[in-house]
């Protein structure tokens, strides 16, 4: 298999894993992490699916990373605020259930 | 000038209205000046317009509104009739309302909406196509709503809700019908004898469109079974009831029916489609049903409300009988009923304001205490019954004759029956008012010195009923509504 195709398929895999965690995890930091994983997946596909080295996708990925960093920073600040203001780092409808984590009370 | 005169007629009530909204409550003199000034100015402009039309001038204002369709204000004979009716009665109601609401709170708001309401009515009268008519029809709903809920009670809110539910429902029917029609004909301009015939459109589709459109305007015209809002709206102050029932809303609905039958479909085409007969039957049922309901109402305004439901359907009946003479009867009743009914509501308001009398059962001997008001009421009631020389007789005469002319003899029975019912619910009031001894004390009497009531409350009903009396006595002279209507009706039929 072509090395680049491996990257692309990994990227798709990351997307799927990230989406799964985003929906099913209750803790907000896990959700933010999930989105980051998904973002990395997209970047992998972007760079990995091409044939020859191509400056355009590389430029796009760099921009994308910058955007993702800003978005993550905002998200984490918001999570912190929620935890301070409401006592728990979750959204209200998720409080009772974390579909993947049996140890959550 | 030709394009601006219709706009100025609109502005003569719109601009004072907007200014009045801004006035503080205490600015009575300024508000009164604006109100009356606007009303008088409107009448002056209308006289100018009538002179112009008489000399063959065309007044039209056109503005593109949506792709392919214009907003059109146009002064033809029919619109002038309705505009004049509105303008004159607006003046009378303004005088009355000034007296009636003396000392009440929120008068600036009231008169502001009042002026907007009349603007909408006048715009509706001058609408030159179905789109413009629709615009003002909805505007009328929106501007009359605050008047219905003016008192701020829970009952007023509920009445307003019912009013809106009915009128908005009618509005969407009218919208749906208008768009549907436009998609088939590509035009919506009102034309004498209609613009639908001869286009090869499927008659079944046309019948459905007719039903939708008529139901849409029929809500405001209080045709059965869409009349429910009218008795409930009596919770509003008397000037509002007077305006709604004689001028604005109900007549707008009736006017809509007239326009749709004559200037959209064309009366002879509509008859050939077979839609006029069901409409006539619906009108007849409304007439009888509402008159019967009126018999059982003790609240005076509610009795008059049901009487309105019944009387406005005379107009519909006249239109639906689809003969030239019946048309005259129906159209002229638009004017006659307006004046007679407004008189009755003015009087009802007087009884309530001066003596706290709201019910028929409280009206014993009221004729002795308020002779002029009761006198006006009596004459107007005779007009409703259709007794000569009152002008109501003229309308019924033409309606009956018109029915016979086209072989719809059953309508004469309806008219006769309705006259009997009218007598049944008016004559006892007259009898008890004039011939029964008055009670020890009235529910809530206000004294006006030696006058029976305030001038502003007394003069309007006397003037409006005097008009109806004079038109009845001098019916064949030029310049009466009858004369004007004969001119209009002739053009709606093929020569």
């Amino acid at each position: 298999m072509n090395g680049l195709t491996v990257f692309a398929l990994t990227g798709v895999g990351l997307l799927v894993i990230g989406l799964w965690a985003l929906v099913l995890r209750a803790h907000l930091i896990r959700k933010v992490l999930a989105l980051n994983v998904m973002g990395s997946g997209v970047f992998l596909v972007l760079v990995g699916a091409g044939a020859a080295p191509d400056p355009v996708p590389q430029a796009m990925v760099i921009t994308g990373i910058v955007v993702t960093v800003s978005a993550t920073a905002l998200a984490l600040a918001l999570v912190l605020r929620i935890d301070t203001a409401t006592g728990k780092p979750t959204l209200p409808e998720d409080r009772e259930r974390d579909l993947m984590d049996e140890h959550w009370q | 000038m030709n394009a601006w005169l219709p706009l100025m007629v609109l502005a003569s009530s719109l601009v004072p209205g907007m200014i009045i909204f801004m006035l503080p409550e205490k600015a009575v003199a300024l508000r009164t000046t604006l109100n009356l000034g606007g009303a008088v100015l409107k009448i002056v402009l209308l006289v100018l317009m009538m002179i112009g039309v008489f000399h063959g001038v065309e007044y039209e204002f056109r503005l593109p509104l949506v792709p392919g369709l214009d907003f059109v204000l146009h002064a033809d004979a029919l619109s002038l009739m309705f505009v004049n009716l509105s303008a004159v009665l607006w003046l009378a109601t303004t005088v009355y309302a000034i007296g009636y609401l003396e000392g009440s709170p929120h008068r600036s708001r009231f008169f502001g909406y009042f002026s907007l309401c009349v603007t909408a009515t006048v715009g509706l009268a001058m609408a030159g196509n179905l789109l413009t008519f629709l615009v003002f029809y909805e505007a009328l709903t929106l501007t009359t709503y605050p008047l219905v809920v003016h008192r701020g009670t829970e009952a007023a809110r509920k009445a307003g809700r019912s009013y809106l539910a009915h009128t908005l429902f009618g509005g969407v029917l009218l919208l749906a019908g208008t768009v549907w029609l436009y998609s088939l004909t590509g035009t919506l301009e009102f034309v004498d004898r209609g613009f639908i015939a001869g286009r090869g459109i499927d008659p079944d589709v046309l019948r459905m469109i007719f039903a939708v459109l008529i139901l849409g305007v029929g809500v405001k015209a209080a045709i059965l079974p869409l009349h429910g809002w009218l008795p409930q709206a009596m919770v509003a102050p008397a000037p509002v009831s007077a305006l709604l029932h004689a001028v604005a809303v109900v007549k707008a609905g009736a006017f809509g029916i007239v326009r749709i039958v004559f200037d959209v479909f064309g009366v002879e085409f509509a008859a050939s489609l077979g839609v006029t007969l069901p409409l006539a039957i619906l009108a007849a049922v409304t007439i009888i049903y509402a008159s019967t309901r009126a018999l059982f109402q003790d609240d005076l305004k509610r009795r008059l409300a049901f009487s309105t439901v019944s009387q406005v359907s005379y107009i519909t009946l006249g239109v639906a009988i689809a003969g030239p003479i019946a048309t005259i009867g129906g159209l002229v009743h638009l004017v006659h009923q307006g004046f007679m009914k407004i008189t009755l509501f003015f009087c009802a308001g007087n009884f309530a304001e001066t003596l706290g009398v709201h019910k028929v059962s409280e009206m014993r001997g009221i004729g002795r205490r308020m002779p002029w008001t009761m006198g006006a009421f009596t004459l107007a009631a005779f007009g409703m019954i259709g007794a000569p020389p009152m002008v109501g007789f003229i309308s019924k005469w033409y309606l009956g004759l018109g029915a016979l002319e086209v072989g719809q003899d059953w309508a004469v029975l309806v008219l006769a029956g309705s006259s009997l019912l009218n007598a049944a619910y008016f004559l006892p009031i007259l009898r008890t008012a004039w011939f029964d001894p008055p009670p020890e004390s009235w529910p809530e009497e206000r004294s006006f010195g030696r006058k029976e009531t305030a001038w502003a409350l007394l003069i309007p009903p006397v003037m409006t009923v005097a008009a109806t009396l004079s038109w009845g006595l001098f019916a064949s002279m030029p310049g009466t509504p009858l004369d004007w209507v004969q001119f209009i009706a002739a053009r709606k039929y093929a020569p």
Partner: protein
Amino acid sequence: MTDWLAEAPWMLLAIALPLLGALLAFLRPHRAAMIGLIGAFMSAGAALAVLLQVVFGGPRQYEVGGWGAPLGINLWADGLSAMMLAMTAVVGTAVSIYARVYLADSPNKVRRFWPLWLFTWAALNALFQAADVFNLYVTLELLGLSAVALVALTGTGPALWGAMRYLLVSLLGSLAYLVGVVLLYHLHGTLDLTLLGERADGGLALAIPLGAMIAGLLLKIGLFPFHVWLPPAHGSARAPVSAVLSGLVVKGAFYLLLRLWFTFSPEGEGLPILLGSLGAFAVFWGSIQALRQERLKLLVAYSTVAQLGYLFIAFPLAGMDPALAWGGSIYLAVSHALAKGAMFLAAGSIMMQGGHDEIAELDRVVDRMPLSLAAFALAGISLAGLPPSGGFVGKWMLLQSAMAQGLWPWALVMIVGGVLTASYVFRVLGFAFTRSPHAHESHNVPHTMEWTALLLALGAVLLGFVAPWALPLLDGVLP
């Protein structure tokens, strides 16, 4: 002098001015309000200048820094962009003037609001002028981030939750969109919209990326059933923020959707009908929920959910006369921006006056705040599609399109939707005229706040009269 004015890079300035304003307001927190307001006026001016440039000179392009695509950034302004820029300028100016007064008592909020708001405005102006799909991603992301921060500004628990939910949905939507961009690039070798339009032929190579992008955008627009985040976010934000969110931010994503649709002109009936059906559900669901609300701001927020549904009804109607259907939808979008903005501003004033926003307890607020109530009523008239208003014109065009093609169900959806909208608007008005048995606090509300709401509402009504002059702007843009 006039030549210089005419040739100045207004397109770039429309983005740079609010950006600079945001930075300055951030660096000088004590002067944030004044810098913010001046920045707002200048941004509005630049946007209107672009409009004039397009009206008189036709669509134009601008290469930022002189570096062209594909590594540089190209700006493109045509009739649709100009219309959106103007819409943002009008609503933005009104909101800015309102916010200046509304936030006067909270210096903490003031120094955070202005940078974020101007940043949002910059993102919007950039979005409306972006010419390639990746730039659209960047601007979309920026827009989402600043909007989220604005929601969080309120500081309460519900607002923070609403902001978090909005952020998560927004990021997910952007990622979906980005997936589409990635696929498009690898399949067709370019990011430029015009070139993509020429190269993409349809079939799976177009369907999959476009599908991903549309899914992402639907999340960001808040179309049923992806609307769940919208009422909490729009309902718990401060009044000027809600006005921006409902009026402008969701329109950004919708604009993007339209651009993609016009560029690629997807064939087939399935997708348009699906979009139209989702729109119909949005209309019904949003309106019914609005009727059930007890709080004014939530009612207005659910109204947004419903009104957004209307915009999508154009999709199944665009077969016969595209200009008519799309023109109607776009006109509805612009009218909604003004009307909904006015409605939120008015609601904010009413809330400030009485200290609460419970509908059943409005207690004849028409006496105390006639201007705000007039603004609310006029805005409601436009939303319900009653004449005369921009909403009526848009609705009429869509109805005409539906009737002309015999597509009754869509016409019925719009008509019933109009009745439902009028119902919940008048429910509020009914209570506004009625006395309440309970006593309430009474605060003074500055006139500026009431007037901005009213003028914005009058703008929505005025749109009902200018359609014959505004719609020709869209010639050449619509398929």
